[in-house]
């Protein structure tokens, strides 16, 4: 990790230190720091954890052990869009399994997997508090409730990787 002078998208040490400074240099800010790292870089890399540990004066294993405890923190790269499907009782009773199957059919990936183009990661999560509109999924921060399997392709289309020239997936 050398210092960074371009618009690189991998975390460089200065960026990480800036995040630590922003959140506060104490152990109790570890989770806010990890949230921020993920927001900036999509996931929390081993290198980022090492820098955070050094900055906070705690062990890397502690940072890593803490990060891996929480399901919303990713220590490995994820797809550009993260689809979360709830399979807790309220959603389960309303047919979340069928929704799950529809997503798998649409994207060709099982929960826990990422599409080859890196556009989607699909995961089954515990209750998201959307029981009033069960079955529900979240795509990134967007909520979709009262779902039917038929609605899935249209929803996913909104997040489809673009095929235009920019190559950015706009």
């Amino acid at each position, binding site marked *: 990790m050398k210092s960074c002078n371009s618009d690189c998208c991998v975390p460089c040490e200065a960026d990480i230190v800036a995040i630590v400074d922003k959140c506060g240099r104490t152990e109790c800010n570890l989770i806010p720091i990890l949230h921020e790292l993920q927001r900036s870089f999509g996931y929390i890399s081993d290198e980022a954890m090492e820098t955070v540990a050094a900055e906070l004066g705690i062990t890397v294993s502690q940072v890593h052990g803490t990060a891996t405890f929480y399901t919303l923190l990713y220590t490995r790269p994820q797809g550009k869009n993260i689809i979360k499907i709830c399979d807790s*009782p309220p959603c389960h009773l309303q047919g979340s399994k069928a929704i799950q199957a529809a997503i798998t059919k649409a994207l060709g990936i099982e929960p826990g997997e990422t599409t080859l183009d890196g556009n989607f990661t699909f995961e089954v999560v515990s209750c998201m*508090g959307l029981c009033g509109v069960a079955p529900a999924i979240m795509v990134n921060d967007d909520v979709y409730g009262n779902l039917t399997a038929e609605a899935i392709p249209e929803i996913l289309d909104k997040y489809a990787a673009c095929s235009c020239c920019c190559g950015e997936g706009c």
Partner: protein
Amino acid sequence: MAFYRAHILVDTGTAAVLKGANALRTALVDEIKRKGLDKEIKVVETGALGLAGAVPAIVVYPEGVTYANVTVDDVAEIVEEHLLKGRQVSRLVYKGDTPSVIKSAENCRSAEMRVVLKNIGVIDPTSIDEYIAMGGYEATAKALTTMSPQEVIAEIKASGLTGRGGAGFPTGLKWDFTAKADGDQKYIICNADEGEPGNFKDRLIMEGDPHQIIEGMIIAAYAVGAQKGYIYIRGEYQQSVANTERALDVAREMGLLGSDIMGSGLSFDIEVFKGAGAYICGEETALLASLEGQRGESRMKPPFPPTHGLFGMPTVINNVETLANVPHIIVNGADWYSNIGTQKSKGTKIFSPCGDVQYPGVYEVPFGSTLREVIFGMAGGIKSGKKFKAVLMGGPSGVLVGEEALDRSLCSEDLNPGAGALIVLDETKCVVDLIKNCAQFFAHESCGQCTPCREGTKRMVEFFNWWTAGAGSEQDLKLLDQLATTMALTSKCGLGQFAGVAFKSSIPLFEEEYLAHLVDKRCPAGICEMDKVEEEVRV
């Protein structure tokens, strides 16, 4: 606050935004202004109304008329016809099932007793002025300027307020412990890590009326002598985080947080702490560990948080709903409050019926209301004309009850409501499948620290996997019962202690259904696969 004769709720849920809801909102505001109605009619953004296929949608109050598939081109007509002339634009009126969110607001206004929810859907959650106009921060003023901390605690004690997170510990007593504990620094923590499946009341309060919580925390801080507060909101609740943070900023700007609040000498500020995805952090000691930057693993009790909490300091940890009750008690008095509810359960309770009910939603009723009143009276009974089968009280960590319980009253002396979730099953659902799903939830959420919970939740899932694959045996039922008992007796914290409760409660009610799976290798509801034999599944 200006009083508006009408409110227009604009669904700005994601699906709606993708179809142009923001442009619609702007057009509405402009058109209303153009017609000179902006002093009379207010446009309010709201979350998804649950009209997935019919967005953008708006609801016009007080009539409660829903317009679906509204476009910018329809705005002039709606304003002209409905708002000016009072004639509904029938071609746009939504004709499907009334969406649950709206229905829940209308259906049972009369039967509900809205104390904590009184502002929800009525005021703009981003406006402190509207909150104040509805009597907000009156309680803070009263407590901080006319009452001593001891008087505040006495009032809360006298009100009979108990914790609304499920455990039901007397709030005043908890505050008293912290007030009397030694500590240079004391903390107030609002537990907004609402993770128990089926519960979404705290989300509604945070999104719809966040100042109530802030007020409750300020009063608590004053009562116990705390300087710092945290609202621990689960990471999944982005909107709650945003609304609460916005409310905190405004409160801070107005001097309701910070130093010497209202000249009382109280210096107190609140921070939002965003959880990172762990149900266990709803357990108070795990929440503390998480706040301290650690794995959310529960800690030994005793000592308890009121005396040895965050960073070892005296700490009050209260649920969102509990804190939201506090301002109302201070304003209206303990007598008023303790007259609501039953002998042992005072005040109101928010329920969130969901599952196979017509109108899943959030309803506030006095303690002592019957299960039937909530499920059939408010949530509209079972949807699609099916029959009621059972309800999981409070969520996966609660008990399963059947029809015989419908007329029991919801209070600590009869049917304990837990945190308020009512997960309802209709006659077509399989109890074994439901309890299996609960077991999977606990296995996913066990922190892995103590043996009985770590291994026990895993083994529970395995038993259910065997049973629903057709590889069960009759004696398994006894073994799993022993396992559930062990977990209840030996687990370090509530997660493991309660993980087997739903299962145990379901055996006497639905033993035949279990035996059908275990002995006849058949799922009466036709839900479980039952497609394997013992040798294929069990090692």
